[in-house]
């Protein structure tokens, strides 16, 4: 057997993560089986109908760009990459009458620990992203787009390139789409291992062929983006949600979520559950239900804590998490973030000091080095947690940890600094006793002199 064949044996087929049949009213993952990613099967599922309707390809009048944006606003769709910003509103920020080139960018640099939802969309339903991008481009008057794909998922990049080729051949990409006056070309670009490039301005730098160091905002990408031109960046899942919204209407999308939190959302459940995987469920689904879909806590153990929105979101103890519903507002009220929808589950055997140590190492490793509080602070945090974990912590370390974290927050160009600090502060807030228990009770002079 050749090496290529050997390696292909270990490639996941999506059975565990995507085609398990345990989604609730799915839209993006609906009807997928791994073999039907191609354009013909996509069209059979109703794909590209939204683009045809929008461009008036089937006889009726074409939609105006204002109508498209109004529908997306009405749907309550919020950015699925982590920030939860209303998508229709973002689209309305793009300058309409700008005389030069404008760009559309899809952020598929999915590297937030815990997240693997976009991978399955791009692998098994790539045309939903292409169609969503065509609609967005039309709404904002953009003729060129790029999809920036996480470098580590190279097979997914190749799949997306194949889907782009299909779409070009079928006339859904290129010049004067379906006989209209609208032209749109879309390309795939891969990263090569840098967490920071998930930050939108770092992604733009990377797309320009540079180190992925974030830009100071303002100016925002809508006025100064790729190559200095107006640019809109949305997450993969956000684009994939758009065709359904245009086909079924904004009100229908909103109705399957809850107010201000429209539609379905895909959660990547990892860690201590029986059935890790991606689960697409309506916004507002109780966390307890998601845990049940994922087979419950592994080996019948008790739930200890959950990181609800990727490694950058504050950890929540089981008692709080079990009361939450999964939507932007509920998780935010509980003191964390829905983030990218990466739900990392930890059972009662887990050591929080060890968990935080690994996360802190990650942020130290991935800090781009541009801002001093983050470059120096992330290393300091890791050294402190590592020292405590080795049983060599000092009583004052607890305060120093909190102080270093507090001095990173809000003092950096991008959110990576906050992302490194928030897990620390949440761990100290909810699990302080575990850290204290690992610090030796030193300083005997205090007790002698008392």
């Amino acid at each position, binding site marked *: 057997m050749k090496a290529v064949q050997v*390696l292909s044996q270990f490639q996941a087929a999506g059975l565990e993560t995507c085609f398990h049949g345990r989604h609730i009213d799915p839209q993006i993952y609906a009807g997928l089986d791994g073999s039907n990613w191609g354009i013909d099967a996509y069209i059979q599922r109703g794909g590209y109908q939204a683009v045809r309707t929008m461009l008036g390809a089937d006889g009726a009048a074409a939609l105006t760009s204002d109508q498209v944006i109004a529908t997306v606003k009405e749907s309550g769709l919020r950015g699925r990459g982590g920030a939860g910003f209303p998508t229709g509103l973002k689209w309305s920020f793009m300058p309409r009458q700008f005389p030069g080139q404008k760009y559309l960018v899809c952020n598929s640099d999915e*590297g937030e*620990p815990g997240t693997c939802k976009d991978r399955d969309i791009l692998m098994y339903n790539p045309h939903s992203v292409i169609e969503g991008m065509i609609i967005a481009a039309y709404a904002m008057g953009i003729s060129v787009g790029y999809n920036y794909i996480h*470098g580590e*998922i190279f*097979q997914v990049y190749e799949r997306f390139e194949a889907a782009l080729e299909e779409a070009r051949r079928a006339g859904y990409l290129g010049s004067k789409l379906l006989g209209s006056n609208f032209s749109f070309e879309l390309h795939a670009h891969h990263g090569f291992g*840098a967490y920071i490039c998930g930050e939108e301005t770092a992604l733009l730098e990377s797309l*320009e062929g540079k180190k992925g160091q974030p830009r100071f905002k303002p100016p925002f990408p809508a006025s100064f983006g790729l190559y200095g031109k107006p640019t809109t960046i949305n997450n993969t899942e956000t684009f994939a949600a758009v065709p359904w919204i245009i086909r079924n209407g904004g009100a229908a999308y909103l109705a399957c979520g809850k107010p201000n939190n429209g539609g379905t959302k895909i959660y990547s459940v990892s860690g201590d559950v029986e059935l890790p995987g991606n689960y697409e469920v309506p916004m507002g689904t109780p966390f307890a239900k998601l845990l049940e879909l994922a087979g419950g806590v592994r080996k019948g153990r008790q739930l200890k804590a959950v990181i609800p929105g990727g490694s950058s979101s504050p950890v929540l103890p089981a008692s709080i998490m079990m009361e939450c519903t999964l939507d932007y507002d509920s998780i935010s009220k509980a003191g964390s973030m829905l983030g990218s929808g990466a739900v990392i589950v930890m059972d009662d055997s*887990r050591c929080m000091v060890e968990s935080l140590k690994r996360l802190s190492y*990650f942020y130290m490793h991935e800090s781009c080095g541009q801002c001093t509080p983050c470059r120096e602070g992330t290393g300091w945090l890791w050294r402190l947690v590592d020292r405590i974990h080795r049983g060599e912590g000092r009583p004052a370390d607890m305060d120093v940890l909190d102080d270093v974290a507090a001095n990173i927050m809000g003092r950096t160009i991008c959110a990576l600094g906050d992302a490194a600090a928030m897990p620390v502060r949440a761990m100290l807030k909810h699990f302080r006793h575990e850290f204290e228990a690992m610090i030796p009770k030193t300083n005997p002079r205090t007790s002698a002199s008392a």
Partner: protein
Amino acid sequence: MISETTLARFAREVAKYPAEQKQSAVMACLAIVQQEQGFISDASEAALAVYLDMPQIAVHEVTTFYNMYNQAPVGKYKLNVCTNLPCLLRDGGKALEYLEKKLGIAMGGTTADGMFTLQQCECLGACADAPVMLVNDRSMCSFMSDDKLDQLVDSLRSAEGQA
């Protein structure tokens, strides 16, 4: 010297970007160089800088900023095991230790026969498939239990005629 076939692959990447923005193709071109030569040499950076009409130091900045570029030769198969938290909770760390024992090398090392390089890595974006590892930047291997790790290493060895 860049071969004709490599130039054709480069050209396909360059064509994606505006003519005055050829530099955008640097990441993809470097990945192609790495696939063909195993690592990024100074000479490759110099040649690519000329091809893309950018300073050589700007190419070097890219090589050194992104985790996946090999700045020195590695084994024929580079194994990157994810040990970030979601993977750690599902034996990602144990998978790395198992490979260290099986290959008789420490993390970061290369086997004496030049066949395998073993590295720890950050999130591969396949968290629900843990333990996961990436082989030679392009092949994701999922659900890597100890049995599967044995199978992978042994099969690759026999594919190379070393069984």
